């Protein structure tokens, strides 16, 4: 029997992701100031803060409904590019796991993949554009490979977390194609993309939460 991620588990994950994002405010803002206008952290932090405020109520929903609520909230509260991209991502994930109360290992993979596709299509962006996609896409690839290779769920969590972190790290060597960093003469080369970093925080935290669930 594998793990089953409940609505309550996901609401707990949101709280932990918020803590990590919140703690790293100065760092993420520094990254953003190097290539953008410095508002990424404050916007995404505001979005997660709102989700944490609503976490009691979110945790009681079936997971697909919870995703829908998270999507609507993020779209409205975060605004900007991140808001519409995260919003579209969660609404797509809600659709991908429609009607499900909980998520098993494959369900989490399907959700992440739906999010990735939504972000790529709404943002008209691909891997290698120096965006959050560069953390999410390798994580999804690693997740799918882990499932098809038949490694344990614990191992999957490890490789996915690592892939997301490595992916974010790799944005340092990329030139931006979308967003504010494209206005830099060197297209942000040599700097991490803040959106990829906050994405890797979320994926890393989600994988940690699943690991705890498995080990419990």
């Amino acid at each position, binding site marked *: 029997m594998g793990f089953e991620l409940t609505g309550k588990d996901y609401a707990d994950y949101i709280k932990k992701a918020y803590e990590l994002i919140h703690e790293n405010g100065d760092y993420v803002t520094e990254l953003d*100031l190097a290539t953008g206008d410095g508002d990424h952290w404050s*916007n995404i932090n505001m979005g997660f803060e709102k989700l944490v405020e609503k976490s009691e109520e979110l945790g009681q929903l079936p997971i697909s409904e919870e995703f829908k609520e998270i999507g*609507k909230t993020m779209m409205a509260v975060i605004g900007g590019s991140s808001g519409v991209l995260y*919003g579209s991502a969660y609404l797509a994930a809600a659709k991908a796991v429609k009607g499900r109360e909980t998520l098993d290992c494959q369900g989490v993979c399907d959700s992440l993949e739906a999010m990735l596709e939504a972000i790529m299509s709404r943002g008209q962006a691909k891997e290698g554009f120096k965006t959050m996609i560069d953390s999410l896409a390798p994580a999804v690839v690693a997740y799918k490979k882990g499932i098809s290779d038949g490694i344990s769920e614990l191992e999957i969590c490890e490789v996915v977390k690592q892939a997301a972190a490595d992916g974010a790290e790799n944005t340092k060597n990329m030139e931006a194609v979308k967003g504010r960093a*494209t206005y830099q003469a060197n297209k942000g080369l040599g700097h991490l993309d803040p959106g990829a970093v906050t994405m890797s925080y979320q994926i890393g935290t989600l994988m940690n939460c699943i690991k705890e669930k498995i080990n419990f």
Partner: protein
Amino acid sequence: MKKIINKPMDVVGEALCGMELAHPELLYTPGYEVISRKEKADKVAVISGGGAGHEPAHAGYVGKGMLDAAVSGNVFSSPSPDRIGDAINRMNSGKGVLLIIKNYSGDIMNFGLASDLAEAEDIQVESVVVKDDVAVPDSTYSTGRRGIAGTVFVHKIAGAKAELGGNLKEVKAAAEKAVANIRSMGMAMSPCVLPAVGKPGFVLEDNEVEIGMGIHGEPGVERTQVKTAKETAEILLEKILEDYDYTGSEVAVLVNGLGGTPLMELYILNMEVQKLLEEKNIRTYKTLVGNYMTALDMTGCSLTLMKLDDELKELLDAPCDTPALKIR
């Protein structure tokens, strides 16, 4: 950070609230951060919006002869589709809605989604995208050119066309004609401070200016020593003319301040700009000087030219009554 604010998180709503109190003919809808005309007019609705921090843009251009509503996001951050949707639903009289969007990826995505959602509700929506900043290469691959101060002219032209009873197609065509004939170039002398960040986004030394900087502090084309007003006018105009040849034509001129530069300096710059235009056989039909599209407390300026034909002249001269621009 020294600012007249309460909490950084509340700046957008409180600013719009204060604006409504100063202009009773406008309506502020909290939560959606929409400033709209109190009365819905029986005509094509012209709606714009974008991140806050560019005041008086865009809410300051709501009123007769210009916008029907303006939607605000957080500081320097696009409004979300639900906010834009509120403005569309609020102002649509059945004759359709034109969205005026500045060319940034966030605005394109959010206004695009809002437009899709409105169309799904059988509301006719068209969009024009302003990309007047010649500091950025135009490109179909990346986001391309930014929309900056020239947007104010687009508001004026589209708003006048709608007020005169143009249908959605005609209003859009007038706005597109304006966009095609507008070019802008900016220069910054000191950075702006976002209320939620609390410190400057970049550093310019005492003797440094940055040519081509964007209205969110995005990098420009080069950093150079402080220039005289004459040299600044030459640099900005030259960049514009490299991209679009206005020689022999009649133009509207906008000498715009970024928020932290005194009007005195803008007028000096205008004097130099007008001399140069005359030398280059470009005739000024109308000039605006002031803080029309700002970047919080950034010091600096931008220069915008719009080539005019008879239709654009008529639309530019048509009366408008908004907090930030009145033409009688």
